[in-house]
C-alpha cells in the first residue's frame, strides 16, 4: 500500500544565523540510504524533523519538503527510530507484535516469528516470544524496533536519529530496512554507518552545507571497517559468554 513512494525533495532554506543554506535542493529516491553528518547542534535532528513534518517554509529553517508518489494519505508513510525510544507497554513480545500487526491490517500471525527471527539475527541475546517487552535489554529493544519497522510498520520512509547501539549488526540492520525500496535517512556519528550510506549531507550551523557521495576508496575502507566491527562483535560475544579473551580474532 505504501510501496509507491518515489522521492523526497528538500528545498533549501536558511541556517541558524539566517543565511541561505548552501544546498538548495536535495533529492532522495526510493532505496537510497542518506547519512546526515556534523557535530552536535549542527542541525541533523532539525532536518529529520522538517522531513517528518513535510515543512512548507513554516519551520525555523524555512525549508520546503515534498514527498511525491503517495496517494494522498500521509498516514503511516514515515517510521522513526531513535536512541531515546523505549518500549513501555506491559505485554509479551508476541502479543504486542500481534497487536501492532493487526493495527497495520496484517492478520497473519506468521509475521510475529519473522520479526523475532530477524531481531535475533541482528543482536546477540535471543528474544523469546514470551518475554515481557519492557524487560528486554537495550540491544534487544533496538533490534526488535528495527525488525518491527522493517516488517510490520512497512513505511516507505525511515528516519533514524543516532541509533548506534553496540552489539547490533549495523550493516545488516540497514540492509534489512532498505529492502523494498525504502528511503533511509540516518543522523549519525558512526563512521561505519556513514560509509554504508550512498550519500552524506554535511550539516553546519543548522544548514545543509555539502553533499558527498561515498566514493570507491571509502567503500574499500568500509570493508576494512566492517571486518573490524565483526572482530569487535566477536570479542564482545567471547567476553560476555564468560570466556577469556586471548586472541583478537
Amino acid at each position: 500500500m505504501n510501496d509507491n513512494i518515489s522521492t523526497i525533495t528538500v528545498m533549501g532554506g536558511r541556517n541558524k544565523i539566517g543565511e541561505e543554506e548552501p544546498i538548495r535542493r536535495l533529492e532522495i529516491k526510493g532505496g537510497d540510504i542518506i547519512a546526515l553528518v556534523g557535530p552536535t547542534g549542527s542541525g541533523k535532528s532539525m532536518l529529520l524533523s522538517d522531513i517528518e513534518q513535510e515543512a512548507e517554509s513554516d519551520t525555523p529553517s524555512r525549508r520546503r519538503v515534498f514527498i511525491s508518489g503517495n496517494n494522498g494519505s500521509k498516514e503511516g508513510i514515515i517510521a522513526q527510530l531513535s536512541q531515546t525510544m523505549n518500549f513501555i507497554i506491559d505485554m509479551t513480545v508476541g502479543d504486542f507484535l500481534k497487536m501492532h500487526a493487526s493495527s497495520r491490517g496484517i492478520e497473519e500471525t506468521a509475521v510475529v516469528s519473522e520479526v523475532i527471527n530477524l531481531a535475533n539475527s541482528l543482536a546477540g541475546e535471543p528474544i523469546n516470544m514470551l518475554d515481557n517487552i519492557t524487560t528486554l535489554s537495550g540491544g534487544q529493544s533496538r533490534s526488535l524496533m528495527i525488525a518491527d519497522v522493517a516488517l510490520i510498520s512497512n513505511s516507505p520512509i525511515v528516519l533514524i536519529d543516532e541509533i548506534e547501539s553496540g552489539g547490533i549488526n549495523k550493516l545488516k540492520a540497514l540492509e534489512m530496512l532498505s529492502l523494498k525500496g525504502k528511503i533511509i535517512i540516518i543522523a549519525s556519528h558512526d563512521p561505519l554507518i556513514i560509509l554504508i550510506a550512498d550519500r552524506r549531507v554535511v550539516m553546519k550551523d543548522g544548514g545543509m552545507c555539502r553533499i558527498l557521495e561515498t566514493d570507491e576508496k571509502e567503500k574499500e575502507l568500509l570493508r576494512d571497517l566492517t571486518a573490524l566491527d565483526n572482530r569487535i562483535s566477536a570479542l564482545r560475544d567471547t567476553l560476555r559468554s564468560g570466556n577469556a579473551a586471548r586472541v583478537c580474532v
Partner: protein
Amino acid sequence: MKFVTVAGPPSSGKTAVLIHTIRHLLEDGQKVTVGKIDCLETDDGDRYRKLGIPVIVGLSEDLCPDHYYVSNLEEILALAKANNASITIVETAGLCHRCAPAVAGCLSIAVIDNMSGIDTPKKIGPVLSTADVVVITKGDIVSQAEREVFREKTGLINPEAEILEVNGLTGKGSIRLKNIIAGASNVDTLANKDLRSSLPACICSYCTGETRIGNSFQLGHVVKMESI
C-alpha cells in the same frame, strides 16, 4: 473571536504544546487570551504570562473543576473581549479526566500522551471522543510500534478527529495546530450554546462536606457496587 477549549489528563503536555502554538499565533499577529482552569494550585499562569499575553487562572478548590469550568466560560470570553483578543484558549485538566466538556460550535482539542498507555484512549471518554483535534504527545520516547498502536486506538474512539503528533519540548508539530486554530470558526457569544456531553451527576452528602464513612451518612444520589 475564536473560542478554543483544550483538555486532557494532567501532565499530558497541554501547556507545553499550547505555549509553542501560541508563540506561532502571536508571530502571525493574532491576539490571544488564555483561561486556565485547575483544581488546587498551578504555575501555568506564569508560563503563559511570559508570552506577554493576558491570562486568567481559575482554581476550583472545593468544587468539581468541570462544573466550575462550564460556569466560567462566558466570564473568560468576556475578559478576552475586553483585551481585544482574536483568540480565546481555555485549558483544563478536569478532575476525573473524562468530562472537561467541549462546546458545540467551538474548536475542541484533546491532548493525550503516548506514555499513558494504550488503554488510555478508551478510558478517558468524552474528552477524547467529542474532540475535533486530538494531539498526541511524547512520541519521541516510545517505540514507533507503540505510537502506531496508540494512534490507531485513538482513531477507533474518535474516527472524525484530526490526529496530530506534537512534541511539547521542541514544538515539532505545533505549526499544524496553529493553522487549525487560526482556521477555526468565529463565535460572538457562548450563551445558549450546548456542551457536547453532559457532566457526571453527583449530589450526595460527600459533595456537601460530609467526611464520615457509613451508610447512615450517605444521603442523596448514592450508588452501590452490585453483587458484593
